[in-house]
């Protein structure tokens, strides 16, 4: 049997990799992908805990999370498209309107 802790460790590693990805990448799109990685890592963690506790509520939660992630990806990409149309660039370093 695989101890749930192992899954949790994997989830932690994946999450941190997602964080690193967020900082390494320079365009909005790939940074968004990094966010998706982090979401999935979270899902994995929830499932691991759900298995450890024996209740199935974690699975229901994960379903909802995936659904919401889908909706969020849709809107997020729509926004990125709009930004691209406006600025002709999706490099985050160029989007400095909040400066000062």
């Amino acid at each position, binding site marked *: 049997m695989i101890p749930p802790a192992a899954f949790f460790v994997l989830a932690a590693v994946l999450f941190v990799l997602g964080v690193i990805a967020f900082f390494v990448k320079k365009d909005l799109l790939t940074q968004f992908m990094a966010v998706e990685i982090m979401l999935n890592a979270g899902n994995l963690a929830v499932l691991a805990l759900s298995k450890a506790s024996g209740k199935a509520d974690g699975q229901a939660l994960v379903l909802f999370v995936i659904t919401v992630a889908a909706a969020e990806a849709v809107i997020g990409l729509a926004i990125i498209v709009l930004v691209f149309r406006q600025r002709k660039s999706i490099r*985050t*370093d160029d*989007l400095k*309107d*909040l400066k000062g």
Partner: protein
Amino acid sequence: MAELFWLIPIIPGASALLLLIFGRRFSRAWVALQASAAVLISLLLSTAAFLRLAQSGHGAPALAKELLAWISSGSFSTAISFRLDELSAVMALVVTGVGFLIHVYSAGYMAGDKGHPRYFAFLNLFTFFMLVLVMASDIVLMFVGWEGVGLCSYLLIGFWFDRPAASKAGLKAFIVTRVGDAGFIIGILFLLTTVGSADIAAINAAPGAGLLSPALVTLIAVLLFVGATGKSAQIPLYVWLPDAMEGPTPVSALIHAATMVTAGVYMVCRLSGLYAASVTASSVVAWVGAVTAVFAATLALVQNDIKRVLAYSTISQIGYMFIGCGVGAYAAGMFHLVTHAFFKSLLFLAAGSVIHALGGEQDMRRMGGLRKKLPVTFPVFLIGALAISGVPFLSGFFSKDAILTSAFAGRHYALYVLGLAGAVLTAFYMFRLIYRTFYGQERSSLAPGQHVHEPPRTMTIPLVILAAFSALAGFIGLPVFFGERANVFGRFLEGVLGRGPHGLAPSTETVLVLAATLSALLGIGLAFVFYRKSPQIPSSLARRFPGLYRLLLGKYHVDEAYEAVIVRPLVRGAEWTYQHFDLKVVDGVLNGSASAAGLAGKGLNVLQSGLLRDYALAFLLGAILFLGFLLI
């Protein structure tokens, strides 16, 4: 009517307030009228109160009224309350009486001045403060009046503020009296902490009640007297009074002759309980007075400005008043205060009349032969001069004699001799002034077309009234020679001030009176010789004793000494402090904190790069910290 006595200070005060705010909108006639009427009302109220007290006779309770609670701090509390007893009544009459006459005189004298409403406002304000000083029932309120008259003195000396000499003189007066006031304040503090109350009656009873050790009584009395030397222009703080002559002449008459400068004498008499309990303090008072009397008289010998002669004369005469107080004859001191108020203000106002007639000339070297041209001014001036010289039967004779006799009776023979010497000098310099101004050939230089003329009626009538008082006021204080009951004045004040030294045999008294008369006549005679018969004597003397002459003319170089020893080091110290502390530390802290804030802002600005990744970093950091917090 006497119950309304507490209005005595209030009415001039209200008038002052009105004139300060609205004065410029009133007509000149109204301003003068309102100001004078306010003082007149106070005069009438003072008279009513005085009559009430006179009627009730000895041991009458004073008129007292508390107006409003003022300070209440810990165990110390005091209220604004007035108390009018015989002593205060006398002072109130002097202040309002002479004050009223001077207000009327000023209406004529200041008629063309552009600061007319301001002048009367300040004059009323001064009257208010002086009356507060005189009627205060506790020493703190008295000090408020004390400071207030000092303020008004500053305002009025520097009244013509566009004249640099005038504003400097005003500043000098204020600062020098401030030095004295420091002593006064320390004295008050000692009183508050030892007696525990500011009430004057309590303070006067304190030595007897054992609340104050003898050393403490002496200390406090001397400290308060330091304040008096400032306000009353005695040694060492007299230097401001001659300079104060820059102010308008009526101001010199009222403030620097009759009232404010006598506040010190009043204070000593008011707190006679303290001074009577300390022989040391009383000696200090008497000796300072005596030395000042002679010292100032010597300086009056060589002055050429008519007002300066009168200024030094005032300093000298106040010295006499302090001699009286110092030997325990407080009533005699007050008697001289009253007579001096009459004849000195008369002399100042008459001098003002002369100056006015000559178109502003104050130097006696350019006067002369005015006797026939000023038929009203000359006689009244002469009466004033005779009174101050102590010629018999005029007021000054009786009051000066009262002081000298008391000194002799108290066996202060040295003081007596000094007083007598001063009397000779007084008569001499006064008649020097008379001869120089009114006799001899005309040396004045008036523009063609201007001729010497008497001033208008508003100015001459007060002169006449004051002359009458100067001549006759002496009779209220006849010496014991004429019987025990003859000293009406002394008996009136006995309840408050007690009796001075007495008990001389009538023969001794007669001798003393004769000595006083002789000294006056000696002085007048010498003046006649020097300035009328052989006018070359003064200049030849000046040539033979040039050093002495220069010393006197230079006022013993006291001003220069003060300047070098005190003023300049202080100014340098202040400059140094300004450079090193004010600019560097204070401004440094202020500017420093401002620039620190700016730097902090600029530093923090780095965080707001606008870059998403930086904000994400912050996010991450926050998450880590939060998680750490949960884990710990």
